[in-house]
């Protein structure tokens, strides 16, 4: 199709590989501990679907990083290292012995994954890394890299900030360390463990070479991930599901009659999220979470990390299913509203915003290609997707919370593979389907089912935009199906 779309994965990888530190061996400090016995090279070959042609995959690419052996014969890496992996290989730094591995669990929300070698004896003689406790800003930590010969290169850095920040999946924010460290460009640095006193303090997931700053998934998040892994059913990270504004403006505070010093103003509620199900409303002021008061920016006093955003408490310290009481001011009344923490229900999303391992769904009817709107699809338009992608689709994705709750998925005609059946429709692309043969379309399954019931021998397809309505000859579409598959080398005309 018409776009060149640099995959963002590649860019992130490049920024790591191009990170040429100006400081060399000075920062590499000798440290006599057992960490070498806990590190494994992880080579992952990944392949993502081409969302403009969802029946094919883009060319495979490889990512190389360093995994940390943790308790239970598991290797901890970032989710991005092994996202959409087709083949994973573990390699011992010194002996170059290799084993293939499987992803035991991957969670994009926290950007973590654990791998398990297929060779059960592979990890013999290795020692798992223990997890370190909380750190404070200003404390030192060491990032581990491998020299080509298997020696460990250590770069000492200092924690420069601890806050709740954005993770690559964009599904929300979790605790994030920033470590100032002059990391060198070395092969295989996509994921790197960071340690202190021989204990893991977190996994480096991004490195900003210009500012010499590494983003680290801290142990608090890792512990939550591992605890979920050990629970009978993995649920991951719950979300409160609110958007809020700080309440710093004294005029606004006086207007809503707020006398206490803190509090945040709820500006939006994710439909069917934890807050929504508990009855939190737009315009509420949240004063305290679980009895701990919030300041005007939504921070609470955390025992380990000091003043940080309340979502660390609700999302990471608490697990799905936990009940968290919110002290709420509504129309001058203070309410105590118990909120059961829930994981965002992706099935209910109108436009999937997450990275996904799943093969994208599609339906091809006579040459018309139908797909579900998703954030990854919009990102095929490149870094400036928000302005370059079709604006109606961007609007639906961005403001999906404001669409009717029963809107269902947005199904779009993404492009046309010209066939005799689609004569005159070749120019159509990225328009939103409303009905097929009179049936409202809220999913690709709806579309597939409705297409099985043509009206008077025609497939009648209706759209929000021009041409508003089009027709296909149902019998001809059916009889040409095999031809269409053969002609455009399509493995299948639908994947649901």
């Amino acid at each position, binding site marked *: 199709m018409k776009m060149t779309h640099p995959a963002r994965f590649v860019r992130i990888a490049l920024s790591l590989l191009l990170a040429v530190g100006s400081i060399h061996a000075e920062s590499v400090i000798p440290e006599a501990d057992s960490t070498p016995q806990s590190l494994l090279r992880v080579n992952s070959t990944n392949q993502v679907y081409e969302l403009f042609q969802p029946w094919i995959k883009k060319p495979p690419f490889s990512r190389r990083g360093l995994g940390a052996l943790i308790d239970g014969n598991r290797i901890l890496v970032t989710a991005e290292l092994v996202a959409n992996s087709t083949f994973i290989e573990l390699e011992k730094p010194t002996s170059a012995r290799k084993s293939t591995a499987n992803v035991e669990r991957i969670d994009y929300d926290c950007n973590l994954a654990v791998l398990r070698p297929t060779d059960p004896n592979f990890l013999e003689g290795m020692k798992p890394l223990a997890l370190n406790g909380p750190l404070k800003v200003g404390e030192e930590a060491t990032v581990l890299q491998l020299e080509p010969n298997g020696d460990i290169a250590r770069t000492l850095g200092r924690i420069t900030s601890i806050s709740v920040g954005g993770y690559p999946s964009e599904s929300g924010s979790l605790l994030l360390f920033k470590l100032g460290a002059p990391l060198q460009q070395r092969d295989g640095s996509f994921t790197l463990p960071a340690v202190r006193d021989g204990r893991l303090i977190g996994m480096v997931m991004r490195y900003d070479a210009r500012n010499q700053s590494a983003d680290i998934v801290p142990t608090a998040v890792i512990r939550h991930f591992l605890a979920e892994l050990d629970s009978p059913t993995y649920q991951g990270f719950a979300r409160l599901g609110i958007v809020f504004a700080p309440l710093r403006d004294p005029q*606004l505070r006086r*207007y809503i009659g707020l006398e206490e010093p803190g509090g945040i*103003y709820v*500006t939006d509620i994710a439909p069917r999220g934890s807050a929504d199900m508990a009855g939190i409303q737009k315009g509420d002021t949240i004063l305290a979470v679980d009895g701990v008061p919030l300041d005007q920016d939504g921070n609470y006093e955390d025992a380990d990390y000091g003043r940080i955003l309340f979502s660390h408490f609700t999302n990471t310290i608490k697990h799905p299913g936990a009940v968290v009481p919110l002290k709420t001011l509504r129309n001058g009344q203070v309410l105590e509203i118990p909120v059961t923490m829930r994981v965002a229900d992706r099935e209910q999303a109108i436009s999937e915003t997450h990275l996904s391992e799943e093969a994208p769904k599609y339906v091809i009817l006579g040459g018309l290609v139908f797909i579900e709107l998703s954030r990854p699809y919009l990102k095929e338009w490149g870094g400036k997707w928000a302005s370059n992608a079709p604006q*109606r689709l961007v609007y639906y994705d961005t*403001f999906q919370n404001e669409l009717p709750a029963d809107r269902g998925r947005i199904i779009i005609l993404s492009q046309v593979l010209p066939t005799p059946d689609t*004569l005159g429709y070749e120019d159509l692309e990225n328009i939103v389907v409303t009905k097929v043969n009179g049936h409202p379309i809220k999913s690709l399954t709806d579309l597939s089912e409705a297409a099985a019931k043509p009206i*008077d021998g025609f497939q009648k397809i209706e759209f929000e935009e021009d041409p508003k309505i089009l*027709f296909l000859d149902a019998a001809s579409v059916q009889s040409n199906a095999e031809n269409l598959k053969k002609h455009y080398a399509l493995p299948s005309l639908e994947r649901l």
Partner: protein
Amino acid sequence: MHRYLSTPLVLLATLVSLQAVEISRSLIRIEATSQEPDYKTPWNPGDVASGVGAGFVVEGKRVMTNAHVVSNARFLTITKEGDPNPYLAKVLHVAHDCDLALLSVENPNFFKGTLPLEFGGIPEIESVVSAYGYPLGGTRLSVTRGIVSRIDFQPYSHSGMDSHLAIQIDAAINPGNSGGPVMQKGKVVGVAFQGYSGDVAQNVGYMIPTPVIDRFLKDVEDGRYDSYVDLALTYRSLFNPAARLALGLKDDSTGVQVCSVYSGGASDGIVKSGDVILKIDGHPVSSDGTIPMEDEAVPLEEVVERKFRGESVRLDILRDEKPVALTVPLKEPWPFKLQSNLYDERPRFVMAGGLVFQPVDQNFMEAHDPSDQRLNYLFEFFIADGLHANRPEIVVFSNILPDPVNAYAEEFRYSVVDEVNGHKIKRIEDIAAAFEEQVEYDVIKLAGGNRPIVLERKAVEEARPRIRERYAVTAEKNLEK
């Protein structure tokens, strides 16, 4: 040797000057001083700039030129060939939708010795034409010559929203040619008006052809320009055999499918989405949307192009497989104005507590280039989604003059305003009225349910002289276009 060479040169020069002498009695050089309104600081009068264009004398002691030569003009002088004196001129009529204007001259002596030019028809493809003007601003007449390359509908970039018939020529057309006549056999066959810069396309210039000029001259006969009218619908070619069959059409090549009928437009409530247009004013419509007219296949819009406000169009429609005859009274589709470049208008705004509110139009969007996604959606789909029905104007919080009273409002810049002091905001006037009310708090609610912006009225009043003085705000509102 020398003599032989020089003779043909002299001859050639004489030839050129013969034509040039004739045209020099009609060609006009226009110097315009204009003031571009400032949509970022709307109380300011805007920057003054000057430019040079061309024009020519037409019947009735008038000078024809492009609208864009005289847009936003504050002061116009014109000169004719062979007379060094500048004369004061005024805009008599301006048509921004087809980039034409007529000027009048105060001093009646100006027209002594001038020759009004006559208009010809549509020149043939490949026939030679000459363009006259003052490219790159020189004071002496310039002639370039080329052939007619293409005759087609083209977007007119002056308004950015309108498309009319235009003729592509390969004669060099440069800034300063604008408004100049393009001649063939002693008659005007077009007015040079736009072209591509050299890095986009070579030798592609456009002129406004005489059907468009004729329409303009006819429109202003009653003393005012009413602008083009429009059916305000979209249609699509009907090539697909299944679609033709489903819509009850014969297996021939007639008819186009109506897609969108814009609410508030001429066809609203008369034509329906899914109708098939078979004939327009009796002209059979081909399945690619063209009609035969004067031995040419032209887009069906051409019928509407030649009509005026108050006239109507007859459509023969196939609806639910049955023929229907419809009459559409034509009018100007006002919501489109919002998306076209506007001239000779002053920006409207309201300022309160250092917050500036403005209605959104193309000029606003061009000046501010906001990245707010909600605003961009509302603007882009204002017509297609009929958003104007609930919100005739999109009013945004467009700018902030920082002051203690508005210390926490900056982050909401470019938010669309839904409500002020309990009143729905549908036009900029509503916001002015809402701020007139006596309240303790001014409460500004934004689209999308962000937190309200709350300003204490007492503080707003206290801040008022301070903000006006500090930021040199000469007016706190302007509601007049």
